[in-house]
């Protein structure tokens, strides 16, 4: 049976620099996978390819058995939620920032209101509902961008360093929301992080990416207790020089 999300020989170059090198990976439904690795090894590029913000030079991504070559970018993006490292909020209230995602999908007003309020509660934003999103702190804005991506119950949730530079309070709210969403709704989630402690806290599986290649990919306990590759061990111990 085909995997939920399958990456088959994905390669990508920027100029002469190879970012991803014939990368293969498969993700199961309901997975919460952390992709870890040093900066500049292709983690963000990989997420952008999965969200079809970029196309690979070669290789194929298949989502629920359908190759991307047979799907339009728009069709894929409607089914996937993406949270970027630096949040961008629109010049509107917190409520409307989140509601836009449902309006794009033609959700009726009563259902829209209930779903937005529910997700705002999950991310502890309900008291800020009417506030202009432009006046929020960085952590609050990142929670809004997560709410915006989660509110339409995406079939796949992608997060690119969503808690980088955030304070522990905001990190905790975001991690709790991600785990609850994965547990309750079985939302398949891929989070890119360079924080191995975060990976250990929230992920079910961990993938280690180095120089565009997948070095290690296993269940979280196995990843940390018995890494398959010496480079993984070196990265976990913090000995890796890069």
């Amino acid at each position: 049976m085909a995997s939920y999300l399958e990456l088959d020989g994905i390669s990508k170059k920027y100029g002469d620099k190879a970012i991803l090198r014939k990368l293969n990976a498969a993700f199961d439904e309901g997975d919460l996978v952390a992709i870890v690795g040093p900066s500049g090894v292709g983690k963000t590029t990989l997420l952008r390819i999965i969200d079809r913000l970029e196309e690979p030079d070669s290789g194929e991504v298949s989502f629920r058995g359908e190759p991307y070559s047979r799907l339009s970018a728009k069709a894929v993006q409607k089914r996937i939620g993406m949270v970027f490292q630096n949040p961008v909020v629109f010049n509107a209230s917190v409520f409307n920032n989140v509601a836009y995602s449902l309006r794009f999908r033609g959700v009726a007003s009563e259902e829209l209101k209930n779903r937005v309020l529910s997700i705002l509660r999950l991310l502890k934003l309900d008291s800020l509902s009417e506030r202009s999103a432009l006046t929020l702190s960085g952590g609050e804005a990142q929670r809004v961008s997560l709410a915006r991506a989660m509110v339409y119950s995406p079939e796949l949730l992608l997060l690119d360093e969503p808690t980088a530079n955030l304070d522990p309070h905001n990190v905790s709210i975001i991690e709790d929301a991600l785990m609850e969403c994965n547990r309750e709704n079985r939302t398949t989630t891929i989070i890119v992080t360079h924080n191995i402690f975060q990976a250990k806290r929230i992920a079910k599986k961990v993938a280690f990416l180095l120089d565009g290649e997948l070095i290690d990919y296993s269940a979280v306990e196995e990843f940390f207790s018995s890494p398959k590759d010496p480079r993984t061990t070196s990265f976990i111990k913090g000995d890796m020089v890069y």
Partner: protein
Amino acid sequence: MGGFEFLIDGFLKALQLISSGDPLIATITLLSLRVSVTATLLGAIFGIPTGFLIARKDFIGKSMITTVVNTAMGLPPVVVGLVIYLMLSSFGPLGFLKLLYTPEAMIIAQTVLTFPIACGITISVVMSLNPKLKETLVSLGAPGIWEALILLNESRLGLITAIITAFGGAISEVGAIMMVGGNLGGFTQALTTSIMLYTNMGDFDTAIALGIILLMIAFGVNLFLTLLQSRSKIKRTV
């Protein structure tokens, strides 16, 4: 009578004319407002979406079109007047419309002036938006129309500037409406063309009164739109 006394006397008489509600001055003022407000609205209705499309789409010749629009922002009104005159005159291709020397001809001429202003400023404002805004909308699966509406909303301060600039250009120009309107008394006399006429006739009181009204309109409209801008402006902390 000395130079300054002459000016002050003219100014006082002008104020009397304005406060008395002189029907001629009222007619001229209303026509000017009708022509310039309509031309600004038409320029914005066509110019803003065109500017948005030019800014958002990548196509061959985009730089050339942007340069042409930017150049057209400084079109000499008298040249626009000449071209519209030739188009609408009885021997021109649109002569059958019989619009020459009508307020409609004046609106057409001023719309030709306001369109590139609205379009050019929109191109510049939309192109300077944070590219992450567009990418966020794409990743959220926003349909094209929603994407356009949200990006225009994000550009609203700049769009208000476009409208202020277009209206300022329209209400203060004289060359285009003089050529296609003809400055016919009670019919196509606008504030600027009338100021010229009454100055040439030596009726400085009326000319000064019209000048004061023109300045007041320009100031009032700009004040209104600036207040609108201030209300839209929220300190960005993100």
